[in-house]
């Protein structure tokens, strides 16, 4: 009886140790009585033995293995160095970008510094006024006004007023009288504490 394709697959699975035990028992019974099947199994085993030699012949010698391992270790060190270098470059680039940003912002803001309202009489209320704005100033007391243009040129020296309204009016008047091309700024500082 000829060995068909299904029987061959059965034999392959048996040789590979993949045939379930229940099927193995059936195969053993058939092998005992079917000579062709047994012959095919012997042939498969012989081929398998030759291929085992082939697979063994593919194994490299010690020097090849050592060479590969050395190459891999060198490559991993190179990879580590490149990774470290990449991180270093990223950090350096970020730092450079931050510095450049700071310098740019500073450069752009340099003119604005000259145009800031100037207070010539430091007092303990000066910072409060600067931070809270004129709206927070008290309605009465001593108010100093100094008027400068945006370039920082003095247009009117410090003068004292009794109320915020008077101080503002004075500043507006100076502003209206002057024809400075850079515009005019003014600031009012309440002098609550006498000095």
């Amino acid at each position: 009886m000829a060995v068909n394709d299904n029987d061959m697959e059965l034999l392959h699975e048996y040789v590979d140790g993949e045939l379930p035990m229940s099927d193995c028992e059936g195969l053993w019974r058939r092998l005992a009585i079917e000579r062709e099947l047994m012959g095919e199994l012997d042939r498969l085993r012989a081929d398998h033995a030759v291929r085992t030699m082939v697979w063994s012949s593919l194994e490299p010698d010690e020097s090849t293995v050592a060479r590969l391992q050395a190459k891999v270790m060198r490559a991993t060190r190179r990879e580590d160095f490149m990774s470290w270098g990449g991180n270093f470059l990223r950090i350096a680039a970020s730092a450079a970008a931050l510095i450049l940003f700071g310098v740019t912002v500073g450069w752009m803001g340099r003119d604005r510094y000259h145009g800031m309202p100037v207070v010539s009489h430091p007092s303990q209320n000066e910072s409060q006024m600067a931070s809270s704005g004129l709206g927070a100033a008290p309605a009465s007391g001593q108010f100093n006004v100094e008027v400068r243009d945006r370039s920082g040129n003095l247009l009117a020296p410090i003068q004292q007023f009794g109320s915020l309204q008077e101080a503002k009016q004075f500043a507006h008047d100076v502003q209206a009288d002057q024809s400075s091309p850079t515009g005019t700024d003014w600031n009012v500082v309440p002098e609550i504490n006498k000095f």
Partner: protein
Amino acid sequence: MSMDENGRQPAAAESTNELFERAVQLHSRRLLAIARAIVGNRASPEDVVQQAFMNLYQHRDRYDWREAGGLMRRTVVNEALRILRQPRMSVLPDDAGDLGPSQSPSRHMLEGEAVLQVRRAIERLPENFRAALVLCEYEKMSYAQIAETLGASIPQVKTWIHRGRRQLAEMLRAFADQT
């Protein structure tokens, strides 16, 4: 704590790099043989294995290196198949006569020709057949493990192995008839 492939208990302080290095030392030989079986003389097995190792090293923190055998085998097989699928392949000098370090000269004389012919026949098999055969017969992997490694189904792996052996038998029968 789990044991590694060698039954050793890994030291707590052992870094990923140290585990990787140990895995490379442990598996290089067999992986080279697998790569050689799959790529034949169409690429350098050393290059295949090295590239596979480097692919793993670049993402080394993702893997458990205490049992790296299966991972490395899968990566080498995939790398070998990827290289074979590239359109332009250079053919390396045929070293099929080299039967490895462990054989005596007389055995070499007797078996050399048969082994040479089988190796050449294996090189003519389709790449998936070759990969399935080497994993089955050399690595003694189960069909399920081969299927996982090659990203195929178990019936597909069975078919590849079965057809591969049949084609080999036909090629070698033709060789036997010639001689």
